[in-house]
């Protein structure tokens, strides 16, 4: 049940390193309590994104309370939207892509999720983020 009482966070970067490092920073703030998935790199491993990896990351971070996706640049967003549309219809409504910076947004969103916030609140917190 643990995985279901907090909103999950997904990190989708063009760079596998950025995705992994951001996940480390998130884990440092919220430990293992928040469901987390991350991915980066195109299907060959170069800079870019990969819909299959995004789907897997969403699965890893799955929570019935919802999943918030953080992306970096355009292609990561478009590929994430594509991935969301490929989910089962009943899952689709529980996934949002945040209009927020990837690193700062992921840390903020995860911190909010850790406190038990709703998907809408997690998203709002990430999106309100003005770089301090």
């Amino acid at each position, binding site marked *: 049940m643990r995985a279901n009482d907090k909103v999950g966070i997904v990190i989708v970067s063009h760079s596998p390193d950025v995705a992994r490092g951001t996940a480390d920073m998130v884990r440092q703030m919220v430990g293992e309590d928040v469901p987390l998935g991350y991915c980066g790199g195109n299907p060959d491993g170069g800079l870019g994104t990969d819909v299959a990896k995004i789907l897997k990351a969403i699965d890893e971070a799955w929570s019935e309370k919802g999943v918030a996706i953080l992306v970096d640049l355009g292609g990561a967003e*478009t590929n994430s939207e594509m991935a969301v549309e490929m989910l089962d219809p009943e899952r689709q409504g529980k996934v949002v892509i945040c209009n927020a910076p990837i690193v700062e947004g992921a840390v903020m969103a995860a911190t909010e999720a850790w406190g038990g916030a709703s998907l809408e609140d997690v998203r709002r917190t990430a999106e309100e983020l003005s770089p301090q």
Partner: protein
Amino acid sequence: MPDLGKMLDVVAERLIAHAEELTALDSAIGDADHGLNMKRGFEAVLADKVNILAKPLPEALKAIGMTLVMKVGGASGPLYGTLFMTLGKELPAEPSLADAARALTAAVEAVKARGKADFDNKTMLDVLGPVARHLGNGSATFDSVRKLAHDRAEATVPMKAIKGRASFLGERSIGHMDPGARSSELMITAICDGLEDKG
């Protein structure tokens, strides 16, 4: 009916042959991967050709689109993927030219929605949109389509990019052809060449 297997070969060959050129265009106003992305995508389509050709045309087009979505790795993946998947959704198994014009128009609208973009944003849409409209007016010839695709790709040179990575350059995106407009031109030209050779 046109031979889909041959069309795929011609389009994939063309894009792969021009991969370096596309990457060079993307290097000027983007991240220097558009050729690599298109090559990866269309190599995957070729690798799946037997499977694709076993399907009726609409399903085959959807499979092509899905392969591009899964393999391209850049913004162009979901965009071209959406183009082909929408064509698959809109075309009957044995389409007329009018069917093709209508389906392409719908597919262009789907790409616009997917990319939250509009015409004159300096993207592939600036080739795909005019070609869809031209096919719809009934007087299109292979030559007129090729010329239009070529001209519309050239017409992206003076545009300022509003969408995609090139938009990060602002004014400095002016003076360079959009790589996605060029790959669209290459696809359309390859299809004309393949069909003409056939017919």
